[in-house]
């Protein structure tokens, strides 16, 4: 195996995801320590034209095939395995996203490579790759070391600055043959389904009152609605509230929901799982109410209270009226 760092490019509708540049920036920083260079696995159709956006890399391994235009865990997985065979990287960085999760874990089994997932940080320490995983809903961190000749780390989106990896350039392009069987795979991409338009666009509001499972039942939602209307804001939520169909999907904040950046984010009965934090950590003022004093949301909030939301919210609404 070599010393290069391979970044797996993620793209949707012909545009690279921010996390691709986050990983590229980090890879450039680590390449000095491994004594290798940065390369990119670019799997898709017609994406080679966009390789100039990957100027932070010295080389792009391109698997280009019309059947790879849209992400497919099976065929993109085989294509990535082919790139890894070819590139023999010391470290493969994959985003811990919906697409990246599929790629990283399938690569780990296919190539029998160590995988460290949910990484918030990656370092090179002597002959070891060391990565810190965020576990147990963000309550525990684990620092793992691997001295394997080739290691996969899947990195959480949003933890490294994207600007560091956003450089135009002209990396060398090396074609890697697409794997067989792309057109009659057992998993067949059909279509992208766009999000439905909602009644309220939570990304446009300055003040958001966010409810989580702590709200207990749909019948308690008016508590949040009243507070939001006293503040002139809107109600949004964590995922379980949407999965329970108490609020439409357009109100969901987080990894699989919307990213919001309001002036005020009032989190009521939300534990602060990493997937939720990803969507709201950039709010200007975060105030969290949660009866569990160890809830990870308090790491990210500016102000917190362990009062029961059912006592606090009515009192607060009264004061704001």
């Amino acid at each position, binding site marked *: 195996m070599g010393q290069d760092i391979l970044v797996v490019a993620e793209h949707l509708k012909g545009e690279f995801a921010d996390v691709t540049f986050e990983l590229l920036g980090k890879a450039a920083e680590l390449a000095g320590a491994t004594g290798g260079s940065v390369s990119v696995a670019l799997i898709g159709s017609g994406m080679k034209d966009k390789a100039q956006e990957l100027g932070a890399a010295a080389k792009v391994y391109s698997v280009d095939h019309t059947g790879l235009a849209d992400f497919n*865990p*099976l065929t993109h997985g085989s294509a990535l395995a082919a790139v890894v065979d070819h590139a023999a990287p010391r470290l493969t960085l994959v985003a811990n*996203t*919906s*697409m990246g*999760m599929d790629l990283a*874990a*399938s690569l*780990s*089994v*296919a190539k029998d*490579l*160590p*995988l460290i*997932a949910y990484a918030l940080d990656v370092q090179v320490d002597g002959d070891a790759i*060391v990565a810190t995983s965020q*576990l*147990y809903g963000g*309550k*525990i961190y*684990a620092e*793992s*070391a*691997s001295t*394997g000749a080739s*290691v996969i780390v899947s990195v959480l989106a949003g933890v490294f600055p994207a600007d560091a990896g956003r450089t135009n350039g002209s990396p060398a392009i090396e074609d890697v043959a697409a794997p067989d069987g792309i057109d009659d795979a*057992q*998993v*067949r*991409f*059909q279509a992208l*389904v766009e*999000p*439905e338009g909602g009644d309220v666009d939570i990304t446009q509001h300055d*003040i958001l009152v966010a409810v989580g499972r702590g709200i207990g039942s749909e019948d308690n939602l008016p508590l949040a609605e009243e507070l939001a209307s006293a*503040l002139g804001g809107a109600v949004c939520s964590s*995922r379980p509230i949407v*999965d329970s169909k108490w609020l439409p999907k357009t109100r969901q904040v987080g990894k699989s*929901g*919307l*990213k919001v950046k309001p*002036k*005020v984010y*009032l989190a009521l009965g939300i534990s602060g799982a990493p997937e939720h934090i990803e969507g709201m950590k950039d709010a*200007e*003022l*975060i*105030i969290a109410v949660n009866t569990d*004093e*160890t809830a990870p949301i*308090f*790491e990210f909030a*500016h*102000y917190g209270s*362990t*009062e029961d939301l059912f006592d*606090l919210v009515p*009192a*607060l609404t009264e*004061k704001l009226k």
Partner: protein
Amino acid sequence: MNIVVPVKLVPDLVEELEINDDGTDLERDFLSYKINEFCDHAIEEALQIKEAHGASVTVIAIERDETDKVLYTALAKGADRAVKVTGVDEAATTHTAAKAMCTVIAGMDYDVVMTGVQAADDRDGQLGILLAGYLGVPCVSVVSDVSVSGDTLTVHKEYSGGMMARYEVTPKIVLGVQAARQTPRYAPVSRVRQIMKETELEEVLVGDADVDVGSTVRRMYTPEKGEGAEMLEGSSEDVAARIAQLLNEKRS
């Protein structure tokens, strides 16, 4: 259609999690385990398919403190078979758990394996995807909105911002379920008790699978409380007054 649902028991995050003396794992002696919430969704989705199209649902779990209860509960909800896998170390990695599940499932007559999309203790990857790799079948994870038509399934894989990709898949396949089409059902306690009296769980001894995950935990710790939140103290009236003040400052 035969559906197998491997469920994972994970430490209950509501309890305080302590680190062991050498700082490399949780202190497992007094941990209480509960079903991983996404596995609950996988069970629900399997039962929905069973009710709509007819299917046999087998739930399997690696033995932990609460495994019997979780398996009996699944039977009470409508699963057809429940299998307890014994002999796997509590501190096993996800690769090890996936390998153990593979040993049991590979011998079953299955079409679809539905796992929860991820679990709180997945340091080395998500079980469903690893399991698919060991079984040698494809996997689509982060899935919701599953529907069945004849021998094919249509699934939606969730991206961010509410965007989804729709795939058609042909068994055998592993699906990592993010959300069932409806909130996981509850099993009445009386029904669970009755099942416990009438049924004996199937047991399979697997023992620790021989997988080298290739990494070791140097240090496990509670994240330092950086700046953290300024905690507001006092009665709920006091706290409400202080929050109102903060909000009014920000609004003006």
